[in-house]
């Protein structure tokens, strides 16, 4: 299984490195959205719940770009059939795609979070960053599990570009809520606190539930 997942992840990252179809678009979208918020809110800085909301909604929509493209090369170039003909555990594809999406999200956040700190965030990003790591990690895990599941379902339909976001967004709303609530205390200007542990626990539980659901149903999504 490890060998198969390794081969699939390596292939995913190679294809992305050659085409640059997902990650640059995701990062550019996020930065552009922060600029739009900057002018639309007519505020130089934001903080607290408002800042957390802007950050997570932007990350969610940027992530959707990557989710939508996750299986496109496989569907268009016969990669699905190539994989299905191999004598391997099909769960390997779920793990590999989720890991690849996780990598894309990490790169997205390496660009988007500092950009958010520069363009919009009132309090210094440095003080919030250590506390933000937990919601970022749990948010990424949830998006990777749900995004992979939904992308696998949508890519085999004719309206995949529409169906992907329509299915994914309602399932990702609890992650946005959890991440925003967990991050808000870190982004206040005066006396910032730690991440809200209740929301961190909720996020972890949600990730676990959807990780198990994805594991249970992914095989059926690949069946004819």
């Amino acid at each position, binding site marked *: 299984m490890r060998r198969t997942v390794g081969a699939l992840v390596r292939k995913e990252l*190679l294809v992305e490195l050659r085409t640059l179809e997902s990650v640059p678009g995701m990062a550019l979208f996020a930065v552009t959205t922060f600029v739009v918020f900057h002018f639309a809110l007519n505020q130089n800085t934001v903080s607290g719940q408002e800042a957390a909301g802007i950050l997570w909604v932007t990350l969610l929509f940027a992530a959707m770009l990557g989710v939508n493209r996750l299986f496109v090369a496989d569907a268009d*170039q016969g990669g699905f059939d190539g994989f299905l003909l191999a004598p391997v555990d099909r769960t390997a594809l779920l793990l590999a795609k989720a890991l690849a999406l996780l990598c894309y999200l990490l790169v997205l956040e390496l660009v988007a979070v500092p950009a958010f700190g520069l363009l919009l965030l009132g309090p210094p990003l440095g003080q919030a960053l250590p506390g933000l790591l937990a919601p970022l990690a749990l948010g990424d895990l949830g998006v990777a599990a749900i995004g992979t599941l939904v992308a696998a379902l949508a890519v085999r339909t004719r309206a995949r570009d529409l169906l992907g976001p329509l299915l994914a967004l309602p399932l990702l709303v609890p992650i946005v809520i959890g991440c925003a609530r967990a991050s808000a205390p870190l982004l206040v200007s005066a006396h910032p606190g730690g991440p809200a542990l209740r929301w961190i626990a909720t996020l972890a539980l949600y990730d676990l539930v959807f990780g198990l659901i994805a594991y249970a149903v992914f095989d059926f999504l690949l069946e*004819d």
Partner: protein
Amino acid sequence: MIELDRLVRRYGEREALSDVSLSLPTGKTVVVFGPNGAGKTTLLRVLATLLRPHSGAVTVLDRQLPDEAWRVRGRIGLLGHEPLLYRELTPRENLRYHARLHDVPQERVQERLQAVSMTNRADEPLRTLSRGMVQRVAVARATLHDPELLLLDEPYANLDPAAIDLVMPLIGAESGRTRVVSSHDPSRGLAEADLVLGLRAGRAVIVKAAPDVGPEEIAELYR
């Protein structure tokens, strides 16, 4: 060995294959003729375990489909209309990827690239290669894991005569494998067939030993 007994496969309401029956012993070749939309590709995809039969019995390599499909995956080589290769990867990278999936030693990649005479272009992205070259790489991919059964959908499309000679030892009758070949070329098809299956609108209208079938009978399928 392949056994089909009243195989039915539908797409929605439309029957793409209707009551197709066939028996092919190990090491033999069946060539499938039929006009576009007759069900040739659907038949190959059912045999490849990529599509489930909706009724009838399908036995491939002595295993019942779809229940034992997992036992035959890895023993089948499929060469379809799509090369099942990633355009942004090079032939070598594509073959290495498939070698890992099939747990085949990496040395086999170089051996297969040599067999299809693609070593000199093995490190260029697939999208920069001609269709004939891509087809040669697809042949290398389909035979990389030394499959017992070859499912070939118009395998010589895009290949020039020299390239056909090149791939014949891998996918031709001399490969010694059991083969299901779809073809539109009566002379070549009949020459390499042990058994002929003629499909029209999903129905098997010819199921005969190759010596009993003439080119006229094949031509009639397309009228």
